[in-house]
């Protein structure tokens, strides 16, 4: 199969002001009684995009997906799909299909009939249905299971039947609600890549809801991080990880150390923040005035640990003491206690099988980082 790398790398419709969004949420609010599940949310998703809605449970991501499918009606606002306002269209008339978290397979039908269900509703001729079903079974590699009932299948096979069923009608958009939530870790990782390849092959728009950040980072072109019914940040996985726009996103995605302090000086994009253990010299385009409080976020793997002070005096550095060591195989996590008592997390890749004279408990070390290694959070 042809490599999909090039297609993916050049796919950035959101950066082009000329391109029209395929799905648009415009000031959408959804209330359940007194509870506001989705709060005045505006969001654009583009054709052929693999889009992930990421957030903790109760953040409104599933409600957003259910509004796209038609199971919930927005309290106010518009949902535009391919130029058409779909708010009033019932689910059975929408060109959108959904893969459910519980798979929701019809227990009284065989795999084949499950997949054919949507096609039969459309009144497709029999010969065409069986052709399409065969095609779908081949796509998800379940040809020999066509006559089985769902309860005769394993979890992974059921997941693939659900996928085939939701793809059979060739929807404009495929909605996936925690599609891999019920699979074990190994299978989940394999399936993530299968889904990505499938999405590229079929050229469809995928909207996936997940609470698993790794899953979202692996699969999605862009991620919307949600909290309390609002979108906190929409960006590519790399942007979300490397340049979180808020303390919430920095904290939610991956591990992070947050250094609090006061701005000492700020001019021309260069900022100096005085925190307890470091004087953080970094770059920031946010407007910061001297004397205001600021938070600096830095990922564990971007902190360097050494026994001697870094030679370059422009590097941010502080002394500390090894507090905890966790060996994870591919890397080692070191917790370092700084003079102020704050403990920072660092991680080192174990590139070699044996490290001569490894850093041990209670050892005095230097923690340092480059000025571009972290970001100033706008709060």
């Amino acid at each position, binding site marked *: 199969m042809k490599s999909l790398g090039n297609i993916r790398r050049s796919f950035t419709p959101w950066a082009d002001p000329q391109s029209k969004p395929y799905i648009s949420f415009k000031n959408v609010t959804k209330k359940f009684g007194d509870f506001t599940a989705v709060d005045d949310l505006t969001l654009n998703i583009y054709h052929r995009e693999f889009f992930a809605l990421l957030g903790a449970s109760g953040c409104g991501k599933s409600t957003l997906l259910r509004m796209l*499918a*038609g*199971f919930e009606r927005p309290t106010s606002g518009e949902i535009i799909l391919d130029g058409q306002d779909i708010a009033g269209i*019932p*689910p*059975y*008339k929408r060109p*959108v*299909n*959904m893969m*459910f*978290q*519980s798979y*929701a*397979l*019809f*227990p*009284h039908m065989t795999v084949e009939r499950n997949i054919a*269900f*949507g096609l039969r*509703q*459309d009144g497709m001729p029999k010969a065409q249905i069986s052709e399409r079903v065969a095609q779908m079974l081949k796509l998800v590699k379940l040809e020999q299971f066509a006559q089985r*009932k769902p*309860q*005769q*299948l*394993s979890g*992974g*096979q059921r997941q693939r039947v659900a996928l085939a*069923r*939701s793809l059979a*009608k060739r929807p404009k958009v495929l909605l996936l609600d925690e599609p891999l939530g019920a699979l074990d870790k190994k299978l989940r990782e394999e399936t993530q890549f299968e889904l990505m390849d499938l999405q590229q092959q079929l050229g469809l728009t995928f909207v996936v809801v997940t609470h698993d950040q790794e899953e979202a980072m692996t699969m999605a072109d862009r991620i919307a991080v949600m909290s309390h019914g609002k979108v906190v940040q929409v960006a590519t996985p790399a942007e979300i990880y490397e340049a979180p726009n808020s303390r919430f996103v920095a904290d939610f995605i991956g591990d992070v150390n947050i250094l609090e302090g006061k701005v000492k000086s700020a001019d021309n994009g260069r900022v100096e923040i005085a925190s307890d253990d470091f004087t953080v010299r970094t770059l920031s385009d946010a407007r910061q005035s001297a004397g205001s409080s600021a938070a600096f976020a830095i990922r564990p793997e971007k902190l360097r640990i050494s026994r001697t002070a870094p030679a370059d005096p422009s590097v941010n550095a502080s002394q500390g003491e090894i507090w905890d060591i966790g060996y994870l195989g591919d890397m080692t996590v070191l917790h370092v206690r700084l003079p102020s008592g704050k403990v920072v997390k660092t991680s080192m890749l174990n590139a070699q099988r044996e490290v001569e004279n490894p850093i041990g408990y209670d050892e005095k070390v230097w923690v340092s980082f480059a000025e571009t290694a972290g970001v100033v959070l706008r709060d």
Partner: protein
Amino acid sequence: MPSWSRFNIASIVLGFAFLYLPIVLLVIFSFNESKLVTVWAGFSTKWYVALFHNQGLLDAAWVTIRVSLISATVATVLGTMAALALVRYTRFRGRLLFSGMVYAPLVMPEVITGLSLLLLFVAIGFDRGFWTLTLAHITFTMCFVAVVVQSRLLSFDRSIEEAALDLGATPLRTFFEVTLPIIAPAVFSGWVLAFTLSLDDLVISSFTTGPGATTLPMKIYSQVRLGVTPEINAVCTILIAFVTIGVVVASVTTKRREVQRQRDEQAAFAGR
């Protein structure tokens, strides 16, 4: 495994004797040669033969079967609809009152149900007979169906129906192609329950029937007042046989399906 202590054995024997001794006696005496119910005079099936020449009993049996079939079927439709409304539309005004009212006939003394139905039929000038009887049976069996179907619907995964809607099935087609086939066993149990309740009802039938529509329980009751004959024993034995066969068939099929399901699941996980 608890050991079989003398106390356990005694409990079981006593308990089952209490439950089944009357029935066993009835069955035994239905094969009695003598006309005297309490005196054994040798084995005979002559009362069964006599039974099939007793036109009154046969007519009553035929009425009972027709009433039970019609009322159980209508009650199943109505009861299923009531159960769906109660489970699905949880937020309408007065739901608590409505659900209470559906279940009230379960605990209502039959005499009251019978009497109120009688008053209603008299008030609207409905001639009492086969149809009033059937209506009355629908009324009191419907709530039993509603209870059985409702308990099944409570554990029903709504996303299965949403999946059907999502795939383009209208709500009506979703009901007939997805919901109904899945809850069919519960609907069928509801039907069987309604049928048996209707089959052996005496009190409500007595209130609501009219000339020409005598059910089997009413016939038996009126004959017993003139003295128990072995013929009645024979009728009852046949009824018992019917019920026993029904219960055994139902439980065997349920058990089989359960075993099959477990085997399927094991096979699925073994041969992933």
